[in-house]
């Protein structure tokens, strides 16, 4: 019978906590507590399943063939290993997750490249004391003045 040869992967709970988004913390906690319950229950199981003392019963039960009969039937009994139809689902989920992660990674890389380009552009502007106003408007487009009010105070006097 399946003794303690479970292929349990070691879990890094810190990393597990990191990847959970904020709104799913409750589900993650329940998962974690369920895991702990199961491990504790598994730990309290004895090593081997209990064995029936056939000799004692054979000596004491009066009916002749009963004990032998039971013994034969019991040894012939094969408890089926519960079938595992859930790991497949988890694997399928994981595959999809890997795909979406790959997509996210590629998008993220594209974003990083854009950011790097902008960073380079900002790093390479000429020093401010050598800029003219046109250069300033080029680098920081928000400083561009409205063509309608080219002279100070750059807005109709009523808005002062």
């Amino acid at each position, binding site marked *: 019978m*399946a003794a303690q040869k*479970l*292929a*349990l*992967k070691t*879990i*890094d709970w810190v*990393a*597990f906590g*990191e*990847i*959970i988004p904020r709104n799913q913390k409750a589900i993650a906690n329940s*998962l974690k507590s*369920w*895991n702990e319950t*199961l*491990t504790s*229950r598994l730990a309290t*199981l004895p090593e081997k*399943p*209990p064995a029936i003392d056939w000799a004692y*019963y054979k000596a*004491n*039960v*009066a009916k002749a063939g009963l004990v032998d009969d*039971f013994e034969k039937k*019991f040894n012939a*009994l094969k*408890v*089926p*290993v*519960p079938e*595992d139809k*859930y*790991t497949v689902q*988890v694997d399928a*989920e*994981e595959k999809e*997750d890997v795909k979406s*992660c790959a997509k*996210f*990674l590629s998008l*993220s890389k594209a974003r*990083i490249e854009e*950011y790097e380009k*902008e*960073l380079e552009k*900002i*790093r390479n*502007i*000429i*020093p*401010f*004391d*050598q*800029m*003219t106003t046109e*250069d*300033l408007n080029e680098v*920081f487009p928000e400083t561009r003045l409205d063509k309608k009010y080219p002279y100070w105070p750059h807005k109709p006097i009523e808005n002062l």
Partner: protein
Amino acid sequence: MLSRLFFSAAAAAAPCLKNAALLGPGVLQATRIFHTGQPSLAPVPPLPEHGGKVRLGLIPEEFFQFLYPKTGATGRYVLDIGLVLYFLSKEIYVITAETFSAISTIGLLIYVVKKYGASIGEFADKLNEQKIAQLEEVKQASIKQIQDAIDMEKSQQALVHKRHYLFDVQRNNIAMALELTYWEWLHRGYKEVKNRLDYHISVQNMMRRKEQEHMINWVEKHVVQSISA
């Protein structure tokens, strides 16, 4: 005659004036090369911090150097003082009331500039510095913002590698639950069989006890009967 000498000297000295900046507004435009060729030479090279050296606040150094080979150190001074005296004596420059007002005004101006010029310059520079510092802040803030965005993306990428833990936990849970269930079933089978066997044994024990008691009772009854008969 001296005046002709002066004018020819000035004409000859004109080329060397090109290197003296801050000569006067009109001459400045002629000396810098503005936007020739390419559309823009941005950044336009900044103006030099200090103008060409001048003596007496007015006369550029080049005038003095020009006459040095011919006349030595005092050449220019002699030339200038001679000119001034010439203008005064020949009344080419007439001393009027305005002369004295000019002298006092210019004297006052020189005094004010000498005394407060530096501090006013610093004040103006400080204003400029503030503006530039503000712009620098904006630049640094945007650089930092972009850096933060990049770092966050990188950390999210790192998280992607840890996602498998979620599924590992689930798989572990499933495996453990299955193991437990199997053990439960085994244990149930054992318990049922043990129950049946124990039932048989306890039934036997009970029967034997009953038979013993019955026999004892029967024996007692017969003994009592035989005694009392």
